[in-house]
């Protein structure tokens, strides 16, 4: 009776494996040739394992059931049979070679990043991604846009909870895009399941990968290498467009970059800076310094009522622009543009009771950066 029960348990285990075709259960087939091939490899090797498993467990349960001591089975005394043993070493070897050949083919195909039409630099930063289109003057940072209230449960979950960003990476379809990946602090890993691209971003080193998307659409992924507190909160959204649509977007985005640059010269109002500063603080700085600026000492210093910050305006600006080496404070010069830098510094100097009353103009920041 007991071995019958064992049979039910392991067969239910196998039945649930076999019914994995529903999309939410299995690896996505993806929208690139490479991801389709990987999906094919995954399913073939999975089925090979299921077949071997069925044969092996079948033999095992047959012996368990057939030769039960309670049924008075007498045990034979053979314990040596090298031809059988050679048989069950060479068969697995052949199966392995059979798997290795297609796997090698797919892998060699994946390792060819030459003559790309578009080069995009992907920079992993502590807890967001920055994209720079090489050769075009377009570069922006992509932060998670799921409000913290949803995470703490005050609000209901949005449709793409934890998988939505304020500005997605826009890519053309049917063009080979070459990714150059690096990181500013720790090791992150840029992963979009539908594109089957997963590559670690190593600080100080450059990694290369490529993708050629076949269908337009929005593809979501997230960081896949432990990188600190907000490892779960740095999603990736790729918006794949038709080629014409992409070129139009590029022109319009370049225009927007110029506007931002223009905005630097004019005189900004205090409450304009404070408003813009608060949004930048919430989406970037709150992760460590907390939304009320109380920080989490000793790792993350408090900003509210920080004496040095209030007295030494120059040190405050230098720290935000150039960061502090060997700590989690990055050089925001690599992440934010002069307008955002000026507004977030003004906000931290006047929020939560700091009220120093002074504000920092984007023009001043731009002068420092261009010096």
């Amino acid at each position, binding site marked *: 009776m007991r071995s019958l029960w*064992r049979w039910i*348990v392991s067969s239910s285990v196998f039945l649930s*494996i076999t019914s994995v075709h529903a999309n*939410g259960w299995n690896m996505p087939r993806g929208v690139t040739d490479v*991801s389709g*091939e*990987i999906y094919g490899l995954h399913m073939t090797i999975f089925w090979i*394992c299921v077949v*071997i498993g069925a044969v*092996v*467990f079948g033999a*095992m349960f047959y*012996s*368990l059931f057939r*030769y039960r*001591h309670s049924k008075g089975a007498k*045990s034979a005394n053979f*314990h*040596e*049979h090298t031809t*059988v*043993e050679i048989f*069950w*070493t060479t068969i*697995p070897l052949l199966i*392995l070679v059979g798997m*290795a050949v297609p*796997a*090698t083919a797919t*892998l060699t195909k*994946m390792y060819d990043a030459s003559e790309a039409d578009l080069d995009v630099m992907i920079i992993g930063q502590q807890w967001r991604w920055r994209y720079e289109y090489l050769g075009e003057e377009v570069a922006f940072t992509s932060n998670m846009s799921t409000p913290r209230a949803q*995470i*703490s449960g005050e609000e209901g*979950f949005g449709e*793409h*909870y*934890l998988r939505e960003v304020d500005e997605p990476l826009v890519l053309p379809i049917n063009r080979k895009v070459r990714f150059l990946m690096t990181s500013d602090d*720790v*090791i992150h890993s840029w*992963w979009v*399941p539908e594109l*089957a691209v*997963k*590559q*670690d971003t*190593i600080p*100080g*080193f450059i*990694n290369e990968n490529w993708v050629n998307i076949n269908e337009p659409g929005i593809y979501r992924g*997230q960081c*896949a*290498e*432990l990188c*600190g507190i*907000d*490892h*779960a909160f740095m999603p990736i959204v790729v918006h794949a467009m038709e080629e014409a649509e992409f070129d139009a977007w590029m022109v319009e985005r370049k225009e927007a970059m110029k506007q931002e640059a223009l905005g630097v010269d004019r005189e900004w109002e205090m409450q304009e800076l404070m408003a813009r500063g608060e949004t930048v603080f919430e989406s970037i700085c709150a992760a460590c310094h907390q939304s009320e600026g109380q920080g*989490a000492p*000793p*790792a993350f210093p408090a900003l509210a009522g920080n004496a040095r910050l209030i007295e030494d305006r120059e040190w405050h600006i230098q720290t935000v622009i150039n960061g502090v080496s060997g700590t989690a404070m990055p050089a925001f010069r690599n992440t934010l543009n002069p307008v955002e830098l000026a507004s977030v510094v003004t906000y931290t100097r006047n929020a939560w009771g700091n009220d120093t009353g002074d504000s920092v103009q984007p023009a001043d920041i731009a002068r420092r950066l261009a010096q």
Partner: protein
Amino acid sequence: MAPKLPPTYPLEHSATTAAGSQAPTHHAPPRGLLRWLLTTNHKEIGSLYLIFSLIMFFIGGIFALVIRAELFQPGLQLVNPEFFNQMTTMHGLIMVFAAVMPAFTGLANWMIPLQIGAPDMALPRLNNFSFWLLPVAFTLLLSTLFMPGGGPNFGWTFYAPLSTTYAPPSTTFFILALHIAGISSILGAINIIATILNMRAPGMRMMDMPLFVWTWLITAFLLIAVMPVLAGVITMMLMDINFGTSFFSAAGGGDPVLFQHLFWFFGHPEVYIMILPAFGIVSVIIPTFARKPLFGYPSMVYATASIALLSFMVWAHHMFVVGLPLAAELFFMYSTMLIAVPTGVKIFNWITTLFRGSISFESPMLFSLAFVVLFTIGGFSGLMLAISPADFQYHDTYFVVAHFHYVLVPGAVFAIMAAVYYWLPKWTGHYPNERLAQWHFWLSVIGVNLTFFPMHFSGLAGMPRRIPDYALQFADFNMLSSLGAFLFGFSQLLFVLGVVLCVRGGKKAPAQAWEGAWDLEWTVPSPAPLHTFETPPVFKRPTP
């Protein structure tokens, strides 16, 4: 996983051994706590190891339950991400270094002298010292949770630069604790090699040793080879953090990928250190309850040796997405796939031992059969992970978590529990309560599958590892896993109950507690007296 030696343990008289020589005269042994602090007896030290491992198993289990409680639903309900990262790191460290390895060392200390007919381990005092290093190391490690800046939060694989430049101040304590634990493992390994190679009973040649002894000999060689590499890596980390060198920071000309190469060169043999003794245990238990000699004994020893050798050549399959060149990816894919061959040989040998045997299903056998079935499922997912193009989609997702939990929980942990149920009659003189053991077995099997099987699907669907919160499409799988985790966690209390009851009383067990058991340890009376094989037994090879 095993008994507190009962106070009624027959201390006064030491059993007169076969040769009838009178007990060695020495002053009365110290009583109470001092007895356990100063013991050099391999049986007492074995029990100390097993009790320590049981306590650490529950501490690591509590960390796991905190993780699963947070992951029960999307959203952050219980802990903040910082503490969650500490929980995942400490769960990994405690389970690997404090629960599984000491449990196998405890079984080795208890059973190797008995199985090879030696009076004690080769270096008894070193044996005591290598045990008492463990509580020191892991009290230190657990104390880092209460230090300012929190405990280690960079995963049990502590990748640089997260573990060097961006680590909490308690990291230096973490390094010290790992050093001490490493030294304890190294001393244990030296002790075991010296015992096996030099103190076998006359007439017992290397190939007559039970397979548990063989697997432990090969594991000890692995320990000797890789623990120093771990010591080297954490020393380099220490110098990077405190003495301004830059082994692993690109700023000073170092390279974070170097850390991963060094760590996994230690890491992969380490996971084989945790599974080879389990192979040994299952290879001892299955023939006993199938009432049939183990099929292909020499092949099992050769397969264990080839797995140990191959384990040094596969380390970079943990790094397929770090940016290795094509030739390296291919090399490590091929070498990783090759490991499936000797592992396959072992599984086929177990199953052929069952064929035309006469099988009964006591609790040790149930655990061993569950080991064979569920470990093989873990082996299959391992084979899928070996395919490096597919690993680009699996790497660092819950599919990997499912893989290594399938080979570790129903693998190493079930084998430890099978060993405890199998040798409890020898240790305590009583059979464990069979009904309670059955309950523990079935709840554990259901708990393990309910916890780790849905992880295959959440991983394939795209859920990364080590995240305190996840998108909505993974909610159902995680709820199932969390339920299974609590079921599995609480069903281990039955195990503790079974062990304590067995120590206190239960059906008396004769010297040879199991009908099909023929190894040397069953020639010693049950409960095994403190001093056995004072004069080495004459070993007659069982007629083939």
